[in-house]
């Protein structure tokens, strides 16, 4: 009972204090909706959300992609993944054919989400989440070994988004003097390139996070994969 009173008090008191200020707010607050819709034809895409994320406020998205990479570096430095690779005898007889069926569909849908993002809801984050979800399924089904056998490719996938984004930033900085300020005729190509790379990185990042640690070190007959550890 006391908790409820405490809750009412903590919610009620700020409300009571804020309410008078809220009443005095002007009806139409100043915002950037009109200018951003006006500039849409020059942005290279026709979906306003994608235009904001990758053109008007591209810098924010650049930092977001960088943060995702930092998170994976932090998780990988903590511990080795504890997901166990299942032997062929342990694998579920129905799950494996189902995965074989569903994986191409997931990849296709993620590509569709990326492509549709230029004109309708969708984009790199949603498409990347599809890839991440596919990886979650593969890891939980006991197929995490690919993370170890193709670790170099996984690492390339992790950094490709930030790399392409940085290349775009530097190029546009040299061309126009502003970071991520594209020329009108090349804007959509830049955005597409960045989105493809960012989508791969987001997908691999989410999969790597679910792995919960750096890929397991493989048995000693593959010594070249064990460099740069610890």
């Amino acid at each position, binding site marked *: 009972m006391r908790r409820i009173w405490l809750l009412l008090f903590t919610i009620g008191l700020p409300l009571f204090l804020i309410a008078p200020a809220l009443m005095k707010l002007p009806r139409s607050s100043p915002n950037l909706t009109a200018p951003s819709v006006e500039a849409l034809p020059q942005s290279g895409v026709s979906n306003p959300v994608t235009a904001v994320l990758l053109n008007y406020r591209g810098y924010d998205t650049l930092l977001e992609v960088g943060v995702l990479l930092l998170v994976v570096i932090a998780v990988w430095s903590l511990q080795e993944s504890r997901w166990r690779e299942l032997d062929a005898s342990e694998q579920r007889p129905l799950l494996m054919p189902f995965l074989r069926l569903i994986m191409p569909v997931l990849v296709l849908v993620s590509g569709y989400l990326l492509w549709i993002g230029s004109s309708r809801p969708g984009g790199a984050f949603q498409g990347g989440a599809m890839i991440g979800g596919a990886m979650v399924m593969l890891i939980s089904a006991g197929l995490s070994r690919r993370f170890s056998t193709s670790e170099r490719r996984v690492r390339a996938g992790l950094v490709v988004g930030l790399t392409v984004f940085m290349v775009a930033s530097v190029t546009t900085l040299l061309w126009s003097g502003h970071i991520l300020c594209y020329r009108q005729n090349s804007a959509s190509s830049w955005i597409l390139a960045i989105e493809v790379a960012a989508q791969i990185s987001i997908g691999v990042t989410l999969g790597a996070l*679910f792995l919960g640690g750096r890929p397991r070190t493989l048995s000693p007959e593959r010594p070249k994969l064990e460099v740069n550890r610890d």
Partner: protein
Amino acid sequence: MIQFIFDCVLVLLLLSLAWRSVTDPDLLRSIVQFIIMGLLMAVAWARLNAPDVALAEAAVGSGLTGALVLSAWARGCRSGRKGGPK
């Protein structure tokens, strides 16, 4: 009218799920409530005419975060914390 009722039910469900997902003594149940809250939140974003955010919320906020929290829960049980699986 029917939309108004739908929205009211949605808001009430969201609030109660949010409250219960942090107060439920059973960890697994609170995780499940958190995931359901994420899905309903995606519906709420769709009702607010923000399909982009709805997609991201459903995929990342509910799906992947849910998977991460569940796997953390499974790991917590293995090391024998309180509230973990029996």
